[in-house]
């Protein structure tokens, strides 16, 4: 499993496109928002948590089809599926690799982007916390979507359509947590809900993804 993880990480870093893409996209969104809604700092600081969460989600969405499609095309997935490693584990590692290459950089870079959008000072902790707790769910759910559409030639649009409604609860609680944190309101409920979604998704969805992948590999 560790070998698979390091392989995926190396591929993501060396092959290019995967690692920086999400981050670059996030940066583009954050830079373009002030141009489109105007530079007033009051307005920006009000919408900053929502924009940052939206950017993170879209950046995640952008890189989803890379999770499995390349391995499907060159036959790696068949080899991995016949190896003694259970497919559930493979899928979980794939999600983890995706999170390390897209989710984690977003979490680390988020404070800088928050600065650009004039995020209120108490919001930084909550923004980082909400992204750190929420983005793993995005990766795991995205892996499920990628597994559903892996056999399709141009599954990108379908993948987005399938994953879009599945992302709604995570986005709502994540953005709500960041917003409440920034405005100094009570944050326990959204934090617990967000953590619940993430841990539930991590615990259950790899089984669904592996099942779907087995059907696709038949």
């Amino acid at each position, binding site marked *: 499993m560790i070998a698979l993880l390091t392989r995926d990480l190396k591929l993501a870093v060396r092959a290019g496109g995967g690692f920086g893409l999400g981050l670059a996209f996030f940066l583009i969104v954050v830079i373009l928002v002030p141009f489109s809604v105007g530079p007033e700092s009051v307005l920006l600081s009000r919408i900053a948590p929502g924009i940052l969460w939206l950017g993170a989600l879209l950046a995640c969405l952008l890189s989803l089809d890379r999770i499995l499609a390349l391995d499907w095309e060159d036959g790696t997935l068949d080899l991995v599926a016949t190896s003694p490693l259970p497919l559930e584990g493979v899928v979980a590692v794939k999600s983890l690799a995706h999170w390390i290459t897209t989710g984690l950089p977003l979490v680390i870079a988020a404070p800088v982007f928050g600065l650009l959008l004039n995020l209120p000072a108490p919001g930084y902790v909550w923004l980082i916390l909400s992204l750190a707790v929420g983005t793993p769910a995005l990766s795991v759910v995205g892996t*499920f979507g990628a597994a*559903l*559409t892996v*056999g*399709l030639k141009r*599954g990108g649009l*379908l993948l987005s*359509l*399938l994953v*879009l*409604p*599945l992302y*709604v*609860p995570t986005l*709502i*609680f994540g953005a*709500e947590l960041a917003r409440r944190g920034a405005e100094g309101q009570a944050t326990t*409920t*959204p934090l617990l*809900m967000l953590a619940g*979604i993430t841990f539930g998704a991590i615990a259950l*969805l790899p089984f*669904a993804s592996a*099942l*779907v992948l087995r*059907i*696709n590999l*038949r």
Partner: protein
Amino acid sequence: MSSIWENANPVKFSRLAGVVLPWVSGFAAVALVVGLVWGFFFTPDDFRQGSTVKIIYLHVPSAMMAINIWAMMLVTSLIWLVRRHHVSVLAAKGAASVGVIMTLIALFTGAVWGQPMWGTWWVWDPRLTSFLILFLFYLGYLALWEAIDNPDTAADLTSVLCIVGSVFALLSRYAVNFWNQGLHQGASVMRAGAVTGTDTEEKVSNIFFYPLFLCIIGFVLLFVALVLLRTRTEIHKRRTKALLAREHLG
């Protein structure tokens, strides 16, 4: 007493559908025509809402169907995954096409009613938002069916999507409730106590309720008829494909 599982045999199912279909469609037509005409022309206007109140006869039944059809798809998808009956998953596929239209009707009639009543076509109210999300789920489910060539693979994948989607649909429902308190009124039709008269809260008056009840029955029967028809058509389509393939080989 024969088992319900006998209808998993496509031939038996087709025969049953052939017998039942004319009756169900007939009753659906009668219930809908009587219910809608009664509702539209023989009930008084509401004292505050005027004649717009009559959209209820389309809005409430279609909204109820939109949710219940997804529940039915969940059951038939589970049956397919567990017992591998083709009829079951084809029924889910047929139901989804009806469900997406029901969702659309509910959203559209809601918008038409909301414009004069709330002064807006659309608000991000929990109920409205949930329905939009439900609509997306239906679209995704149908798109996945269309995208995959192998029918058994498509059936398996869409069934898993339906089950996972159900969990997330429920989650979204609560998330959306948490996110915004709504403008939409609560359920006022099928409430416990409404029949016995012990319910003192606001509810739909009996004058409106009887035709509405007929419309709901009509929508249910219409749905049953459409699903039987669509499922039978799918079975026939597969049969023709198999026959053509056999002829091609011979």
